[in-house]
């Protein structure tokens, strides 16, 4: 080891490498990579559970899994996809990119950042381990409504493990969100005023506020549920004067902002990718920032639209219907601004761009059905049916997952110094895009015909459509396999990517594209100045 190597740390520190480095790192980039890898692994598990669900629903008489196991699979599919895949993946990209994009050397609290990641591991172990305790995993759906989730009706420890895992994940997310906020508020490079902050960073600022304000509420609600289960309290137990509807209000006060937490960073990614690939500046920057805030604020005022059939008052139905519809206005601003951002551009159809454009196409449909569901008379017809399943999968798969694919293809060269195969990427995009629409489009019909969600079997007249849907799953599976293979293949190649492989800085300077691929430790030897 040469003694004259210039290091930023103390000279007597031996450089650590390999596993120990990953286990002890506080580097935001390494933590970001761990988040993303963890999310992909969990995505495979959550996707496999979806495969089992579709296999079971292929034929109403097959009963491949027993109904009690089906309810566990369905609950865990949602929990894994929401908390361990989507939120985790966006946290990963946020961790990696936010400090780079604002010209900071790391997050504000690097050790807290590492803690936010590592607290997920025991939470994940509790969730996966709960399959093996007596009574199996939690089976009350990801809402975990009492009284079904109280000790009387869910006696096993699976429910306890689920509650504690969600509380742990919430603690990690709250700390991560505070870290993001302090970083962006305090550590922007000189000259980067708020109106120069990239839209992806803005999306994380709004998301972080939503996390900080909503997660404590659900944590409290879950503590009360745990207390009902173990300390014989009666917050939600009618026999003791409690009210199950209280839990629904508390849960959805978190649950609806949670939906935007899972999509806003995706909006931010697409807002970076679309103009870059069309060689333009983003259209309507101020309107885009305003729309993010409008969605974030309105997102806290609409929660009871999940409860239109729960016996809430007529006045509540009126308010929550109007407020929910109002969200489509800022969402529309974003969609039209994205279209204007590529209008007149010179579009390069890279895989990242295909996913970003495909995202717009599918997200429009998810938005339309969302607006229709806010119309109470319509909602009553399809509430808790497959129409709702179709709607939120269009938002979370056609929306969030597509943006994550786009972001992965776009920033993979920056993160790893290697390009992902565009040839394989073309396959990934088309298989996923076709498969996604194949699976979720017919679910609208199933819901309108009256098939309830969360059922392990169904009346025979629903069989043909269900078979059709299950077949489409194979396309999504193939896309996932090729995507994973593509990543492994790329990682085995030498690093040869320049600072700015997409020629982005020709139009508008993005700080992450000014440094090497991958960026060095602490990102910038000298803080860049923004003019």
């Amino acid at each position, binding site marked *: 080891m040469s003694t004259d190597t210039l290091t930023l740390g103390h000279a007597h520190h031996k450089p650590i490498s390999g596993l120990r480095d990953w286990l002890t790192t506080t580097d935001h980039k390494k933590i970001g990579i761990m988040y993303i890898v963890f999310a992909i692994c969990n995505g495979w598990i959550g996707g496999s559970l979806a495969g089992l669900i579709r296999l079971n629903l292929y034929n109403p008489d097959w009963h491949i899994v027993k109904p009690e196991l089906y309810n566990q699979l369905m609950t865990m599919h949602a929990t894994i996809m929401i908390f361990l895949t989507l939120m985790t993946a966006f946290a990963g990209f946020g961790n990696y990119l936010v400090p780079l994009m604002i010209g900071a050397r790391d997050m504000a609290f690097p050790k807290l950042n590492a803690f936010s990641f590592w607290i997920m591991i025991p939470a994940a172990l509790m969730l996966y381990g709960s399959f093996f305790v007596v009574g199996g995993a939690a089976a009350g759906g990801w809402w975990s409504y009492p*009284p079904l989730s109280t000790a009387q009706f869910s006696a096993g420890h699976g429910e306890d493990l689920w509650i504690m895992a969600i509380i742990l994940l919430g603690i990690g997310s709250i700390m991560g969100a505070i870290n993001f906020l302090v970083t962006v508020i305090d550590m922007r490079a000189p000259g980067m005023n708020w109106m120069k902050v990239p839209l992806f960073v803005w999306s994380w600022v709004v998301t972080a506020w939503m996390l900080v304000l909503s997660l404590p509420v659900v944590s409290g609600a879950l503590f009360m549920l745990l207390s009902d289960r173990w300390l014989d309290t009666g917050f939600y137990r009618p026999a003791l004067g409690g009210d199950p509807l209280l839990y629904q209000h508390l849960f959805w006060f978190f649950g609806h902002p949670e939906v935007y937490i899972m999509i806003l960073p995706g909006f931010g990614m697409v807002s970076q990718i679309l103009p870059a690939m069309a060689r333009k500046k983003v259209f309507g920057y101020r309107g885009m920032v305003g729309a993010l805030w409008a969605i974030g604020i309105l997102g806290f005022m609409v929660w009871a639209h999940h409860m239109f059939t729960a016996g809430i008052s007529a006045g509540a139905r009126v308010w929550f219907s109007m407020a929910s519809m109002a969200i489509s206005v800022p969402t529309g601003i974003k969609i039209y601004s994205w279209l204007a951002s590529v209008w007149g551009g010179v579009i390069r159809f890279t895989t990242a761009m295909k996913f970003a454009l495909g995202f717009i196409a599918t997200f429009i449909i998810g938005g339309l059905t969302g607006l229709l569901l806010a119309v109470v008379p319509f909602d009553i*017809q399809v509430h808790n049916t497959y129409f709702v399943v179709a709607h939120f999968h269009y938002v979370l798969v056609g929306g969030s997952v597509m943006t994550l694919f786009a972001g992965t293809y776009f920033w993979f060269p920056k993160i790893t110094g290697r390009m992902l195969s565009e040839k394989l990427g073309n396959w990934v995009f088309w298989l996923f895009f076709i498969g996604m629409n194949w699976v979720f489009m017919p679910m609208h019909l199933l819901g309108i015909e009256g098939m309830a969600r969360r059922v392990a079997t169904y009346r025979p007249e629903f069989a*043909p*459509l269900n078979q059709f849907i299950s077949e489409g799953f194979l396309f999504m599976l193939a896309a996932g396999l090729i995507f994973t293979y593509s990543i492994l293949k790329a990682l085995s190649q030498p690093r040869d990517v320049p600072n700015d492989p997409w020629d982005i800085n020709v139009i508008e300077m993005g700080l992450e594209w000014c440094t090497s691929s991958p960026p060095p430790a602490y990102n910038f030897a000298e803080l860049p100045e923004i003019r």
Partner: protein
Amino acid sequence: MIAAFLQQAAAATQTANPNMLLGAPTTNAFGHPASSVAKLAAAESWHAFWWVIPFILLAEVLLVYVIFKFRDKGDGRKPAKFHENNLLEFLWTVIPAIVVVLVALHSYPTLRFMEFGGTNPALNVQVIGHQFFWEYKYPAYGIDISNDTLVVPANQVVDLDLTSVDVIHGFYVPGLGIQMDALPGRLTNLWFNGEPGHYKGQCTQLCGTNHSQMLIDVDVLPEDQFQAWLQKHKSAPAPAAAPAPAPAAAAAAKPAPKAVKK
């Protein structure tokens, strides 16, 4: 793929015929609305749909146009430089906002009818959710049936009070356009006036292991047939003497049929 999809969709519609294992076809508010509530709800849904669809189509058409028009053809064309337009941004904020308000306001009279339109009910039934079956009580006739078909008279207002003895259940009969949760410790309410026929539904609120088996069947019978059914099922003792059935306290306040409600 689209052809296959349409085929499947057509097949799904065709297989929903009376010869299927479970009897009558699945009806819903859109295929065959069979009550005033369902008809109004369907009309309201289509109204919202037709207002919203132009915006969606516009966005999708522009998207496809952009994809084909502005692709990099390698001819050295320079990208456009604009990135702001106050008028455009104003229009695509204000126009959707107005439409949203119109759609919302238009739906409120329908909502009002669905909530409060069921005056002068001809029949009151207490619907009680159990894991995993429904119990129907007819307080005026002393009838209490479980795990059976709900039988009601046609073309008259039927008033349902819902509650549950264990977990939350969802009472959903798409053909009649009704859905309401049945919660323990609470009383929820809905009404409908059905056309004669057999209607199928199911529990829509995850209620445990056999949630998917918790089906609902409703027979809406013409008046004479309904009276015959009543005679057959009426319990021997005079119903007026029977105490108000548990668990819903408010059920005691429900008077005999034909009384004015609310």
